[in-house]
Structure formats: structure tokens, C-alpha cells
């Protein structure tokens, strides 16, 4: 029989580090309050034993929940069938022992069976603080274990002390008044006074405060912009060679398959339908990986909550708050983890607005689309393309700000709006964990978004191959996909594009990046991946409507760029939004509003260009 144990504690107290040591997994552990946004379940690491299950919960300041992540913890403790009788492991940050003891009294009031694990033992030593844990355990009437997250010291004793019986008496939900808090705090102070001995205490915050005088001082925003610019610039510097290798590798495999079986439909299906679709997914992996590495580094070092605090005031002007910063920043890599990160925002209103504008942040999937369209606008001027590219990121922020401002006028302020960001100590980032977590999140992106993209891309390819005419691939215009594009052409025409681009836009609903490869199919580019963009640009320059007028003008291309900036095309994002918001109405409303605004904007840009510049 397996026994279950629930890890509970305040944000950033070291719960997830303990969970990693107990289970051997490396789930998310970061130096940022509120990093665990879902609870996770893991089996005990086999080297420590068997038949023990651990549940890691999001940090909570008390058992009276005030934000969605705290509600998750409350549900684990009270409602979840698997865990509502499980023994609790209350994890307490040794440096904040006195304050976090409040949770001990709450757990006792709630009638929860639990033991205490005190973490940050290394920092207590560095601070010259000695605590008599045996006496503390007697005072509180609860078993106490100590644990060093850096070395794993203490893990054996914790496991040996785990009870093998489930709680039988029911738990009760508590409601505390100010007097209860005050009483708990006084009790904690008296208890700690009895068991603590400080000799020549070192101020562990000394170094942190010194760094904060720079990072949060008069030049705080200069550092902020430098760090964020460095993060995004390095993202492109580091990822480009890897993306190139992936692209070239898959191009080579496709070519080899087709060369070996020149007349086989199956071989063409594998080469063009499957291998190329895999390439479309994997080509973004380096960028996403490097973004997660960068964010992991900033989180682990302790800078990210400070960045959120710095940007809080400007974001308030936009109707948001500092806690929206990390989700919005993550949105530049991928909207899916960004939407999940909104659970950390306590205010319903801020969460609503943030999750609404996240899809407007320029995620990695838009990059090849922007690349193609900007190269069309500024051929042979890569420097200008680079500048405009950066400008599009900035424009995404501005458009997001405008959307947020508009939404904040319609959405009433909620009573749960507060910021109060704890600033953790600056600590040396643990690269091994950062790398493992970045790999884990990247894998999660590939497994969540990958199948949808792959299925849609394969479907599109098949749509272009059927109905077979004399057992041969039909002309694209006669294929199913071509027929669909032609039916919808009246919708695309006001944007200044024909059915072929329309097919590209439809295909982008699988994943935006599919647009470029679909355009290559609809415009009959036969070159391999490395030549594809060059040939496609040449064909785009010559592409004409039936009346002889050019399809790709500055107006229509600017309209397409605007469309891609605003439109919510990623179906995986919509599915995530439904799950995160718990409302199909909200997710589908967002889908409709963003796409209508994108369409109307693209039409307006094209029509204005036609009227004034043609």
C-alpha cells in the first residue's frame, strides 16, 4: 500500500527543492515566490524506499486562500480524495522561522496531522543562528526535521520519520481574525525566544541590500532594460545556429527519402508531410529552450521578483500590475506556459486582462512569418529588417498596453487586488537545475503543442494531395485545400490577398509558423528548405490577381503583419485558455475578438494604402 504525503508551505520556502530530493525528479524549483503553479505528484526516489507518494503544492501564506494558486493548495488539503487524509509536511524557511510559525498554528487549528521540515539550514549557519529544534519540537508538539537543500543533508531522517497511517479525524476549514493573527505572532515570538541563540549575527540580507541599491535604485530601469535586452538578444544569438542545424538536418533527411523512392506516394508523404512538419515544430525548440534558460537564470538568481516590482508602477498605468510581468514576458516565447503562469496573479481582474493580452505578445512562432514578410518589404537590407523586427516586439507591447487600457475601462476593479512582492535573497543560480527545468518545460511545449501542429500540418498536406487525378497529385487549385481557399477568397480579398495566401492563413490556425511552409506549397516553390524562402520571395514579387494587379503590395503585406500581430491562431493556446480560465465563453470570446480586430485592422491598412498610395 502506498502512503501519500503533502508538502505545504509559504512561497519560496524550499518545498519544491525538498520534493526534488524526495522524488528524484527535478520539477520546477525557482527563487521566485509562487513558482509552483500546479500541484505535482511524484513517487519516492527508489534509492530512498518504495510505496510513498509526495504531492508538491503551490506556496500559500496561510490556510485561508486568497489567490488561485492558494486555492489549489487548499483543495489538496481539504477536498482531493487522494490527499485530504494525507500526512502534511509543513516546510518552513529557517530564516523566516518566527513568521512562518503562524502556519503551524493554522495547521493545528485545522486539525491536520503534520510534521515540520525546516529548510535553509546553510543560511542559518551563515547567519550564526543556532536553534534548539528538539526544544522547539516539544514546545509545538510537532516532529521537526532539518534539511539542507544544497546538499540534501537531512533527507534520510525525514523519510525515516514519515508516519505510515492516514489521518482519520476530519479537517476543518479555518477563518482567522486579526486577533488570531496577533495571538499567533506573539506565541511564535515567545516560542522562538526560548529556543534560538544568535551569536554575532551576520546580516544575510547585507549583500542583497547592497545589490538592490543598484538594481532598485535610481538606475533601476536602466539595469532592467539592459538585462531584458540582453536576454532577448542572446536568445537569437544562441538559438540561430541550432535552428539552422535542425532545418538543414531535416531538409537532408527529406531529400534522401525522396531520392531513394522517387515515385512513391508513401515516401513523399513521409518526406513532405511528416518530416517537414516535424521540422516546423522543432525549429523553434532552441529559441524556447534558451528563453526558459534565461528566465530560469533570472528567477533562480532572485532578480525576477525585483523586475516585477520595478515594472509594477508602469504596468499599473496600463491597468495591470507587476505580477503580470512574468506571464507577459513568457508570452514572448510561447503563450501556453505564459497562460499557466497567470495563476500566480491574485487579482481576478488583472488575471483576466493579462491572459487576454498574452496571445498578442510576439511568440516565437511568429518569427518566420515576420522574417518572410519583412524581407519582402526590405529586400537586401538585413540591418533594416533587424531594426523593424525589434520594432515589432515593441509594437506588440504597445498594442498590448492599448488593449489592456481599453479592457481595464470595462472590467471593474476587483477587491482582491494587491501586489506585496516578497524579495528573496540574491543567490547563486543552480545551473544544473535551471538546465533540467528548461529542458522539462521545452519538452512540455513540444508534447503539448507538437501533436496539434503535426496533425494539422499533415492534414493540410493531404488536403493538397487529394482528390487524386489519374493517381497523381492534383493541381493545387483543384485540391481540397485549394477548393476551400477559393470558397473563402471573398473573405481574404479585402485584405489584398488571394486564395493561396488565404490557405496559408487558414493553415496558420494549426500553428503560425506553418504559414511559411504552406505559402511555399500554394505558390508551388519546389526548392529545398534552404532555398525555399529565397524562391518564395521571388514568386511573391511576381504574384498577380486575375486582373493583373500585384497581390503583394506594401499595403497587403503590412496588413498581413498586423493580422499576425493580433490574431489568435494557435489552437493549443485556445485549449489552454479554456482550461486555465475555466470558461469556454471567455476563451471563444477572446478568439473571436482578437481575430475580428486583426482582420478589420488588416483590411483597413490595405484599403488605406490602396486609396492614398496606389
Amino acid at each position, binding site marked *: 500500500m502506498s502512503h501519500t504525503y503533502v508538502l505545504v508551505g509559504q512561497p519560496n520556502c524550499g518545498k519544491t527543492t525538498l520534493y526534488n530530493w524526495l522524488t528524484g525528479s527535478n520539477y520546477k524549483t525557482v527563487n521566485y515566490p509562487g513558482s509552483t503553479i500546479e500541484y505535482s505528484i511524484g513517487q519516492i526516489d527508489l534509492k530512498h524506499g518504495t510505496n510513498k507518494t509526495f504531492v508538491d503544492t503551490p506556496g500559500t501564506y496561510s490556510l485561508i486562500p*486568497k489567490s488561485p494558486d492558494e486555492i489549489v493548495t487548499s483543495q489538496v488539503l481539504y477536498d482531493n480524495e487522494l490527499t485530504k487524509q494525507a500526512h502534511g509536511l509543513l516546510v518552513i524557511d529557517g530564516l523566516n522561522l*518566527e513568521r512562518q510559525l503562524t502556519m503551524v498554528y493554522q495547521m493545528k487549528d485545522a486539525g491536520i496531522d503534520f510534521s515540520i521540515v525546516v529548510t535553509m539550514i546553510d543560511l542559518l549557519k551563515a547567519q550564526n543562528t543556532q536553534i534548539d529544534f528538539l526544544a522547539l519540537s516539544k514546545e509545538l508538539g510537532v516532529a521537526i526535521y532539518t534539511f539542507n537543500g544544497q546538499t540534501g543533508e537531512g533527507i534520510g531522517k525525514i523519510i525515516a520519520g514519515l508516519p505510515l497511517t492516514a489521518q482519520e479525524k476530519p479537517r476543518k476549514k479555518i477563518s482567522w481574525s486579526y486577533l488570531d493573527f496577533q495571538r499567533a505572532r506573539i506565541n511564535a515570538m515567545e516560542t522562538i525566544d526560548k529556543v534560538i541563540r544568535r551569536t554575532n549575527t551576520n546580516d544575510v540580507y547585507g549583500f542583497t541590500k547592497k545589490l538592490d541599491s543598484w538594481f532598485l535604485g535610481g538606475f533601476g530601469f536602466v539595469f532592467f532594460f539592459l538585462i531584458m535586452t540582453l536576454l532577448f538578444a542572446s536568445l537569437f544569438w544562441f538559438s540561430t545556429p541550432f535552428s539552422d542545424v535542425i532545418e538543414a538536418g531535416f531538409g537532408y533527411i527529406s531529400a534522401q527519402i525522396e531520392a531513394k523512392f522517387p515515385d512513391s506516394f508513401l515516401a513523399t508523404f513521409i518526406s513532405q508531410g511528416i518530416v517537414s512538419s516535424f521540422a516546423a515544430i522543432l525549429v523553434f525548440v532552441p529559441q524556447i529552450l534558451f528563453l526558459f534558460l534565461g528566465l530560469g537564470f533570472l528567477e533562480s538568481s532572485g532578480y525576477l*521578483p525585483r523586475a516585477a516590482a*520595478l515594472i509594477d508602477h508602469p504596468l499599473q498605468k496600463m491597468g495591470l500590475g507587476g505580477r503580470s510581468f512574468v506571464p507577459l514576458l513568457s508570452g514572448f516565447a510561447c503563450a501556453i506556459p505564459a497562460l499557466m503562469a497567470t495563476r500566480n496573479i491574485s487579482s481576478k481582474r488583472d488575471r483576466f486582462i493579462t491572459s487576454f493580452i498574452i496571445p498578442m505578445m510576439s511568440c516565437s512562432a511568429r518569427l518566420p512569418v515576420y522574417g518572410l514578410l519583412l524581407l519582402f518589404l526590405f529586400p537586401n537590407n538585413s540591418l533594416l529588417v533587424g531594426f523593424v523586427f525589434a520594432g515589432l516586439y515593441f509594437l506588440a507591447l504597445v498594442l498590448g498596453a492599448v488593449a489592456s487600457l481599453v479592457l481595464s475601462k470595462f472590467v471593474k476593479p476587483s*477587491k482582491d487586488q*494587491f*501586489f*506585496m512582492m*516578497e524579495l528573496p535573497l540574491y543567490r547563486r543560480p543552480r545551473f544544473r537545475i535551471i538546465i533540467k527545468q528548461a529542458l522539462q518545460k521545452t519538452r512540455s511545449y513540444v508534447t503539448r503543442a507538437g501533436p496539434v501542429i503535426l496533425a494539422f500540418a499533415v492534414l493540410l498536406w493531404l488536403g493538397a494531395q487529394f482528390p487524386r487525378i489519374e493517381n497523381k497529385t492534383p493541381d493545387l487549385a483543384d485540391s481540397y485545400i485549394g477548393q476551400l481557399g477559393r470558397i473563402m477568397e471573398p473573405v481574404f480579398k479585402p485584405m489584398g490577398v488571394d486564395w493561396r495566401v488565404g490557405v496559408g492563413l487558414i493553415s496558420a490556425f494549426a500553428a503560425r509558423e506553418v504559414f511559411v511552409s504552406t505559402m511555399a506549397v500554394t505558390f508551388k516553390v519546389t526548392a529545398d528548405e534552404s532555398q525555399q524562402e529565397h524562391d518564395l520571395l521571388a514568386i511573391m514579387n511576381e504574384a498577380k490577381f486575375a486582373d493583373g494587379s500585384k497581390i503583394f503590395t506594401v499595403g497587403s503585406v503590412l496588413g498581413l503583419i498586423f493580422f499576425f500581430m493580433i490574431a489568435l491562431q494557435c489552437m493549443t493556446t485556445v485549449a489552454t485558455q479554456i482550461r486555465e480560465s475555466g470558461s469556454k465563453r471567455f476563451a471563444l470570446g477572446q478568439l473571436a475578438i482578437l481575430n475580428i480586430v486583426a482582420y478589420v485592422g488588416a483590411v483597413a491598412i490595405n484599403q488605406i494604402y490602396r486609396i492614398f498610395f496606389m
Partner: protein
Amino acid sequence: MVIEFNRPYKIQKILKYENNVEITDRLYDLGFVEGLEVVVEKRMPLGGPWIVSAPMIYVALRDEEFKRLELK
């Protein structure tokens, strides 16, 4: 009251904020109670949050949150 940085203050009272009662509750959660000695470290640029520290607290508070702490 003009706040001086880097000098200790005592929390006289934690004021209720009618528009948002959760602010007061969260201040309790963070360990702010009457009689606690705190240091106002600084205020972030451009009217940003205040940084307040106490023996076990190092936290950034928005102006409206900071104003809930009646300091002396």
C-alpha cells in the same frame, strides 16, 4: 508624515482599507503586526513600490499597501 529611509519605525496600527480588505489580511499573512519594528529601505524609481524590511520580512509594497501601515 515624511518617511525617512533606513531608520526604524514601529507599526502603531494596521489600518483597514475598505476598498480592499484582502490587503490588510495579506499584510497579516506576511507577518506585519502592531508593535513590529520595520525599516523603510527605499522607494523604487518613478513612484514605484516601497521596500520595507523587518527581521524576517523583506518585501515590496505598493503605495496603497504601504499606507495601511501606520508608522511611528
